[in-house]
């Protein structure tokens, strides 16, 4: 099952748990399962049916392009990190974040 | 409209006539009136050297010279340096030493180097660095530029 690293700023929702293992074949399923176990989590990560601007999803250390739709492997390691708007002044509403 | 003066000067060996307002700098005249855009504007106040040209044998920042001041004088710009089928040795040395990155300061550095080698064909590293301190480059850290000037001096010797 995928492993999710809980960012320190969200650990108040997980009783301090730093890492959890949850079922899911897409990021969306993982977030839904996180929400089921730790209510309030989805509202911190998503807005409507997308990842909030300002948050980036990394799978196995690589920034995903598909965000919530990204399909993930059985043993994927998922990180939710603050998105970095470096290349642009800030990411445009429809853009991925980027570093420069 | 501001009143324009008629100016006759020699640029890269050719007699050139142009009209310019008294407030226009030589840099503006070269770039906007004569379309010789090799001299660049980096600061327009004599601090960066990107607009360096040679006026009657002397290195100047063309942003600090008025167009009307060049009446009867001789101007050398980067456009006049290479022969039709051959680069000037300084230009070759800059290419061979990878002495440019973005290239915006390069025409100024090359003209400045020409003025240096015209007056001091065999400069020390310190003399090169002292002479070129009026030309800013933000890309290269100057290392390869100084080496290019050293090579150009050797090639011209």
């Amino acid at each position: 099952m995928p492993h999710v690293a809980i960012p320190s700023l969200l650990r108040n929702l997980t009783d301090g748990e730093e890492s959890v293992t949850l079922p899911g074949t897409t990021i969306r399923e993982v977030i839904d399962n996180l929400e089921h176990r730790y209510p309030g989590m989805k509202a911190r990560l998503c807005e409507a049916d997308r990842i909030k601007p300002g948050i980036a999803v990394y799978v196995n250390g690589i920034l995903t392009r598909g965000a919530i739709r990204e399909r993930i492997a059985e043993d994927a390691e998922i990180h939710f990190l603050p998105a970095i708007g470096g290349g642009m002044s800030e990411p445009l509403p429809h853009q991925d974040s980027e570093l420069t | 409209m501001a009143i324009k003066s008629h100016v006759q000067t020699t640029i890269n060996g050719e007699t050139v006539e142009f009209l310019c307002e008294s407030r226009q700098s030589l840099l503006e005249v070269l770039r906007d009136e004569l379309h010789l855009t090799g001299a660049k504007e980096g600061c327009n106040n004599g601090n960066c050297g990107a607009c360096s040209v040679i006026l009657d044998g002397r290195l100047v920042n063309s942003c600090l010279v008025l167009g009307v001041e060049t009446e009867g004088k001789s101007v050398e710009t980067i456009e006049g340096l290479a022969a039709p089928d051959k680069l000037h040795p300084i230009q070759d040395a800059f290419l061979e030493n990878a002495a440019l990155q973005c290239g915006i300061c390069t025409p100024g550095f090359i003209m400045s180097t020409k003025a240096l080698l015209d007056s001091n064909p065999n400069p020390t590293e310190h003399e090169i660095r002292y002479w070129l301190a009026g030309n800013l480059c933000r890309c290269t850290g100057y290392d390869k530029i100084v080496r290019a000037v050293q090579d150009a001096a050797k090639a011209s010797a």
Partner: protein
Amino acid sequence: MSEKKEYKVIGTRPIRHDGVDKVTGRALYGADFQIAGLLHGRVLRSPHAHARIVSIDTSRAEAYPGVKGIVTAQDLPDPADKVADLGEGAVNLKYLCDNILARDKVLYKGHAVAAVAATSPHIAEEACTLIDVAYEVLPPVLEVRQAMEPDAPLLHENLKTTSLGETADEPSNVASHLQYKKGAPEKGFAEADVVIEREFVTGTVHQGYIEPHNATALYNPDGHLTIWCSTQGAFTVREQVAEILQYPISKIKVVPMEIGGGFGGKISVYIKPVAALLAMKTGKPVKVLMNRTDVFEGTGPTPASYIRVKMGATKAGKVTAAEAYLAFEAGAYPGSPVGPGAMCIFAPYNIENVLIDGYDVVVNKPKTAPYRAPGATNAAFGSETILDELAERLEIDPLEIRLMNGAKEGDRRADGPIYPRIGYIETVEAAKQHPHYAAPNGKKHHGRGVASGFWFNIGLESSVTINVNVDGTINLVEGSTDIGGTRASIAMQAAEVLGIPAESVNPSVVDTNSVGYTAVTGGSRTTYATGYAAYEAAQDVKRQMIARAAKLWEVDEANVQFADGEFSCINGKEEQISFRDLCARLGETGGPVVGSGTVNPGGAGGAFATHVVDVEVDEETGKVEILRYTATQDAGKAIHPSYVEGQIQGGVVQGIGWALNEEYIYDAEGTMTNASFLDYRMPTCLDLPMIDTVIVEVPNPGHPYGVRGVGEVPIIPPPAAIANAIYDAVGIRMTELPMSPERLLKAIGTI
């Protein structure tokens, strides 16, 4: 990929393809662009750092002879409408628009307020003085800690701190808080024998590219808008202009001219949408140029910062815990690089217990922009000087403590990801083995310092098309503007695949209508990602050429192999033909061959650097002289070593400027008092020695030739390395940048 691969083109030093144009003055940069009927634009800028705009009256300027059009924020679509539709995500759009032309408030001295198009630049400038703007002046907030105070004047009434998806209730100048935590820092500090904590302050610095921003726009009656400009990315200009003007991307063509330096500062747009608005309003082409003061005051520098770092280590030198607090000035709108700063600060080391807090804070200064490894230089100034102090207290060699704690493949960074194969240790070893490190260093007031740095590098999208010519050469079409010789480094990768010389490639950087999407020249990504796309495009050409050879010889494609520029038949027939000769026979085997490659690679592979510097400190004048400098860096694989060395040397020297002299100096009203190249003191060649470089090659598994980005990481170590050298020379720990003569004399006690 084997570490000892033999290449024919890669690793050689050909003359760059655009070289002759650039040494003869023929290369056309943005400001060199000419077109018939051109008008000249000039931007009016705010004289106040913080003020409400009460009214703008352009009537006197409009009546001035030669003036053809004036625009203000009223000519931009109102982004507030879109914020209402799209919610939180569109707030950035309002910030983006307001930074182009201020709508209700000016937030920094130099903030654009209006723009004039006229028949000459002088008339446009004069007309600007005839625009009457009434301001209600507000108190400015000019420093990050002051801006974080609860009673600080607010720049944005609706800005509330976000913390990973949670938004605070009350407005604040703190736009966001981020945090990374690994292990148990308290426990780690308890295990330490020595703990050191210090505060650091760094100034605002500018990229200092020699070419000011420029843009020429042309609007046709059919709605097509063309913009000629200097930019790090034509496609990002197209996107930003489309967003700001709410205009369809398909009707905007951006033509990237040659660019005179960027370093991150020519990604955000400033005058490009203004030129477009003026062109739309006048129906004429309009050229807008910045002067040097505009560049300092009206474009994004990199932020000033306040940083606190605490690190602890055992007697044996093992770093057991590290903490950092980073508060970065975003400038007028949110978006400082505090995130990358926080992710990089301890990245060279494998530390079990880490806590990093970062704050993005708005102040009345220009909206910051990326500058070469944005955020990381500020951060490393803190961490790398503390590590030096730990080494000193523990009596361990400063390179040795870096080797003992250095990050390796499989180690986890504090922000989460696990390192793939990286070359940090190799850079430290290279520094240790360099003759510089063994050279005597005992003279009075002479000192030696070392420091390391990490930068992520990025991948992102790149596209390349290759058109094969009948004479055996190829035309390579790319979208990456060439700031430092990337035409060569990209062409060389295609040449390597096809077994042809670098000189047989004609690279062209083209406009947004003429190549597939390509992200900016930035993030140390161009030789990596566009080079990768060139590799893919060349592979596509190779596949098609194999099919042509098969057709020529009437054999199966599987029977054709290609090596060293020669196609040969491996089964049945004794046939052989060179790439060049096969090109001559394209007509009879099916016509032209065009290959394409497009990539969005995720494996940019991080870059590490370790620097050694010797300085001499003059205790009377406070001047620090750089006596010797050696920079080691993992480049993965250096495609064109001369330009890799050039990137390292250039980055080092920008870092030296940041360390010793460069800063925005403000008065109490928020006016920058040194907005010229005379007073904003960048290094000249007289200030420097030669910069020695050592290229370490630990191939990046994420690139077919092992390339890692090289452009950014060399700016990171210099300020810390120089601070450590100053300590070695005079026994004073400098904690503020720049370490200018004045600060040094105060620290020494001379004044």
